[in-house]
């Protein structure tokens, strides 16, 4: 399958008072039409910064993004702002965790939705209004007319997220980046929103990048998964392989930490310690200090990526790696 979105060697640096800090390092992934890629990780793993970097939504003065982002083979990272605006929203749309902060509190839902439509589709007036109502109906809001006249604060969290999805879908994007879209919602509402996203994907063939910390959501939604830790992708696999035979100790740890619904457990597995800050990444593997399979080499040399078949890749010394290209080896 020809990839729709191709991100390669993406790195993001932040300028801070303590100097330049690399928050995302050498992240690469591809996504085909109709596919869902999950990016999982804990707070501070760089999953949100990755998505903001792809969308080029980070402030230019504070953040330096390197690497290549291609949509249909067109390089996005070198586009001028004006050209980029045609892509962003039109071809790639994004929804966020807290729809309340993404919606403007002083404008009615209808106005905000029509604004997006007018900006991107060239439809005006009555046409824009009709499309807005249709979009609200598409995301399962039956009282769409009434919804057009509501303000964001009058809606529940689930309704707000539906509105956000309607807005993101207004230009029929090819890629939807969803950053923790259901984290703030109750499980019953989460189930509704996940179903809605799946249905829209089936109807329109949208590719989805789903950023989440919830492995349950990943298992239900995704075709393939990238696990991030401390700014790097440490493991990548199709969803079944990842859950059945995880290779990286961090992935294994994450899966085991999750409380089981079906069994009685006396004790939960836990990963000792916490995610290091960029200043404490060290020379070797960034997970080394928390890893139960740590070896001497792990503290000194960053692990290379080992491939298991076509679809699974893991960044860990346990598997040797194919190419030990590292400045630290001294060779």
């Amino acid at each position, binding site marked *: 399958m020809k990839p729709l979105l191709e991100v390669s060697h993406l790195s993001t640096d932040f300028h801070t008072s303590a100097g330049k800090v690399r928050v995302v390092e050498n992240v690469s992934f591809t996504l085909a039409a109709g596919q869902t890629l999950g990016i999982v990780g804990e707070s501070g793993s760089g999953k949100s910064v990755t998505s903001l970097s792809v969308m080029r939504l980070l402030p230019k003065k504070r953040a330096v993004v390197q690497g290549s982002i291609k949509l249909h083979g067109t390089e996005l990272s070198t586009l001028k702002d004006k050209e980029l605006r045609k892509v962003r929203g039109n071809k790639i749309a994004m929804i966020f965790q807290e729809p309340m902060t993404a919606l403007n509190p002083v404008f009615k839902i209808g106005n905000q939705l029509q604004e997006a439509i007018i900006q991107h589709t060239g439809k005006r007036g009555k046409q824009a209004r009709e499309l807005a109502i249709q979009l609200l109906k598409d995301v399962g809001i039956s009282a769409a007319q009434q919804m057009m006249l509501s303000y964001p604060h009058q809606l529940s969290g689930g309704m707000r997220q539906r509105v956000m999805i309607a807005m993101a879908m207004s230009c029929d994007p090819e890629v939807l980046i969803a950053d923790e879209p259901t984290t703030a919602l109750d499980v019953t509402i989460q189930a509704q929103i996940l179903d809605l996203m799946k249905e829209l994907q089936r109807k329109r063939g949208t590719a989805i990048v789903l950023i989440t910390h919830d*492995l349950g959501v990943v298992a*239900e939604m995704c075709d393939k998964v990238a696990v991030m830790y401390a700014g790097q992708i440490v493991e990548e696999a199709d*969803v079944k392989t990842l859950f059945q035979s995880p290779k990286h100790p961090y992935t294994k740890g994450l899966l085991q930490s999750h*409380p089981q*619904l079906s069994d009685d457990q006396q004790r939960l597995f836990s990963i000792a310690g916490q995610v290091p800050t960029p200043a404490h990444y060290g020379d070797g593997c960034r997970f080394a200090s928390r890893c139960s399979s740590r070896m001497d080499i792990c503290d000194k040399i960053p692990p290379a990526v080992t491939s298991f078949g076509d679809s699974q890749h893991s960044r860990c010394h346990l598997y040797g790696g194919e190419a030990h290209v590292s400045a630290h080896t001294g060779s």
Partner: protein
Amino acid sequence: MSAPILEVKNLQKHYPYKKGLFQKPGLTKALDGVSLTIERGETVAIVGESGSGKTTLGKTLLRLIEPTGGEVHFKGRDITELSAEQMRKLKADMQIVFQDPYGSLDPKWTIGRTLEEPLRTHRSHLSGAALKQEVNAMLERVGLQPHHGERYPHELSGGQRQRIGIARALILQPELVVLDEPVSALDVSIQSQILNLMQDLQTEMGLTYLFISHDLSVVRFISNRVAVMYLGKVVEIGETKEVFNNPLHPYTEALISAIPVPNPNLKRERIVLAGDIPSPRNQPSGCAFHTRCPKAMAQCKTLQPDLKEIGSKHYAACHLF
């Protein structure tokens, strides 16, 4: 069996609200007749969606919110009738841990001072050195080191802050601890550390937990019994394993089926509830759940179901039974 540590009878918390200038005020029924018994040493979980009243219940039990009706018997004594002074003394035995430890720790106090404060109030006979010793012992008990006592909340990670929240609640060696979403703000790997810690402390210190959470997998792990709340009422209560394996109330069934399971090979039939939880201001008539219930019958609209024992120690409030 010895007497239960906590017995809640028909607890109510109604908030009046103004409908209009010339109308009689309406009532928001945040808690609408909750009855519950907790035995010494067990963990009872309260689950429900936002707006179900689970946090209000936790706070009302400690009289952080004053109930408008009903009784709370703690070790045989009705605490709703106690004076403020008596209640203050009793607080040494009943403590609470909040979801966001950052919001519940004073940012200008060192961790040490935060932990000393309850001791100063309730154990005023302790000398400075003894205070310090108690604080250090508690820090070690929750998996931190004495030097953490000199830090400020912002210098700690989320997991460490929650350890402090737990230490603060446990330093007076209480008997009952209300845990209000204690791990919801934490990452999975940190969450499991804290859950294990809470379990260890329970065994070591003989604690009784009321564990409030919206996360059913966590509840499945930590609790002995679980009560499901909907719009201020308990709709189902029973032993955790039994409730998860054999949910009676359609709401419980839907809640459990909605949990995403981390297993891509498992294809389950999910019951997707239509709509949101109604506002407690306009409680539906009859069974409050009938507006979203996939199994609603005619009588559900008019008749309120009572909590009935269906299985062994397994209660549900539903007309199906």
